């Protein structure tokens, strides 16, 4: 069962017809109907390609949040073998908005950290919609400490609307937890690579994305605050999220141009949700390429280059 976004309606109509024709062809074995179906499918693909070549920032926001879009857990399943999740910050509790642990990426031992938004009501609640508590960031710091000690690269998968804003989060020092996690990313003597797979929201994203290489999926977004929050801050009206998305330059393409990210992973035509397998494979290739670029660098060089990269942002423009 496919799920279409509003702006995909023309494609949805053609594809519905394709399905109909295919069913007819199936029933009476008619080659001409089958050919017609194939021709229509090509038309749908072409129109999809055209749509996705020029998505507006708001449309990208919709794609980045698409219910069928592959999540962190899908990337883990397909890219990381022997994944062993580790729980807890050893200070207060376990926060499943951030899932982290150790595993094997293309044969190499790595530390993996990421935000999981969940995929049905039960798992969304369990992962708190990918909005981490201080415990989540402190667990991330703990895992980065281990990675640094054992000389393992850190892979971050970013997908969050932002850190959780609540009484308990504030009580336990959400701001400090985020700051320390960013701090730890930047002090690592091992390579770290971040990939924004859906939504990179605010400080909650930066906390695990202050890496040697920051990559984004082609239709992911990375924002100073989610479009809704931005609209609420700017105009006290979350309903103007679309304006905020348009104004704030949140697409991978804009951010690469600004020198804020280091690379874009191409998505299959029609977005990662149309062919998760291919999207995740491309992501794996991009991460592998980044890791091999960073592999020869000493801990000092990794730290220096990371700091220099971030300090350089905005200075060249």
């Amino acid at each position, binding site marked *: 069962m496919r799920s279409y976004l509003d702006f995909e309606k023309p494609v949805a109509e053609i594809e519905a017809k394709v399905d109909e024709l295919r069913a007819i062809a199936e029933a009476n074995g008619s080659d001409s109907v089958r050919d017609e179906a194939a021709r229509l499918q090509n038309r749908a693909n072409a129109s999809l390609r055209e749509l996705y070549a020029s998505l507006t920032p708001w449309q990208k926001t919709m794609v980045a949040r698409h219910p069928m879009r592959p999540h962190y857990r899908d990337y883990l399943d397909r890219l990381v073998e022997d994944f062993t999740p580790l729980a807890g910050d050893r200070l207060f509790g376990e926060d499943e908005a951030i899932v982290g642990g150790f595993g094997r990426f293309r044969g190499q031992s790595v530390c993996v950290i990421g935000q999981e938004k969940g995929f049905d009501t039960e798992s969304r609640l369990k992962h708190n919609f990918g909005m981490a508590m201080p415990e989540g960031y402190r667990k991330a710091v703990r895992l980065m400490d281990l990675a640094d000690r054992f000389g393992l690269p850190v892979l971050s998968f970013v997908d969050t609307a932002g*850190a959780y*804003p*609540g*009484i308990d*989060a*504030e*009580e*336990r*020092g*959400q*701001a*400090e937890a*985020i*700051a*320390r996690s*960013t*701090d730890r*990313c*930047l*002090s690592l003597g091992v390579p770290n690579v971040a990939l924004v797979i859906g939504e990179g929201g*605010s*400080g909650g994203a*930066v*906390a695990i994305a*202050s890496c040697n290489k920051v990559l984004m999926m082609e239709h992911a977004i*990375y*924002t*100073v*605050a989610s479009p809704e*929050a*931005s609209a*609420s*801050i*700017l*105009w006290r009206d979350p309903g103007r999220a679309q*304006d905020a998305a348009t*104004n*704030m*330059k*949140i697409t991978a393409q804009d*951010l690469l141009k*600004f020198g*804020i990210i280091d690379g874009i992973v191409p998505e299959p035509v029609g977005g990662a949700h149309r062919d998760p397998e291919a999207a995740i494979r491309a992501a794996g290739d991009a991460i592998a390429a980044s890791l091999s670029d960073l592999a020869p660098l000493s801990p000092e060089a990794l730290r220096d280059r*990371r*700091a220099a990269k*971030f*300090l350089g*942002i*905005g200075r060249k*423009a």
Partner: protein
Amino acid sequence: MNWISNVVRPKIRSILKKDTPENLWVKCPDSGQLVFHKDVEQNLFVIPGSEHHLRVSAVQRLKMTFDDGVYEDIPLPEVPLDPLKFRDEKRYTDRLKDARAKTSAVDSVKVGYGLLEANPVTIGVQDFDFMGGSLGMAAGEAVIKGLETAAERETPFIMFAASGGARMQEGMFSLMQMPRTTAAIQRLRAARLPYIVVLTNPTTGGVTASYAMLGDIHVAEPGALIGFAGPRVIEQTIREKLPPGFQRAEYLKDHGMVDLVVHRRDMRGTLGRLCRLLTKAPAAA
């Protein structure tokens, strides 16, 4: 045109202007009492009686912190204006112009170098009155410049933070000030120089979630609102009223995020003492 309008009026006008109540009286936001402006100014902008700490401008803060109010104004790097070409009802560049005219500052952070109880220190101050102390490229570069100046001149760095959060009009360039300032803090740490943060009212958002919570020591002014998410956002999320005292300096101290809550009249003494202790300087005479 007669001799009255030419000669007398200007004098009357200037007298009237001086006497407008908002210049003369300050209303305490806590107790509602009206206090003579001069008295508040002489009391470091703390309302006598209620002890409510009013916001102070960056220049006032630098003057009240350095010995005899004397300091060297550290020149700050220029940054690209309006990288996103952001406009809503108004162009961002026009908003900047207005804020600059209103505060006669270039952006929200100023940096000074001078003596604090006879020991050299570098101090950064964030001015909430400049677009809500928002963290954009200029403020980020200024904080970095402050940290670098401290490292070069081998002094402690004291940062008076005050901010509503990110400068939304600069989008991701604003967010990037979080890792950027953090990288600069790591360099000061590597030089083994103290970094003291003074949290003033209010400090929220990306500023709290980066350099304002990475101090070696966290000092706060009484009653200062300090948090990651602002109270409005939290209320919208959980849909209930927040408990009294929530996110105030004293609350943060109780929850282990702040070392000291210090009255403004004791701020110089406390900062001076901390700097001397951490840098092994001799005790004050």
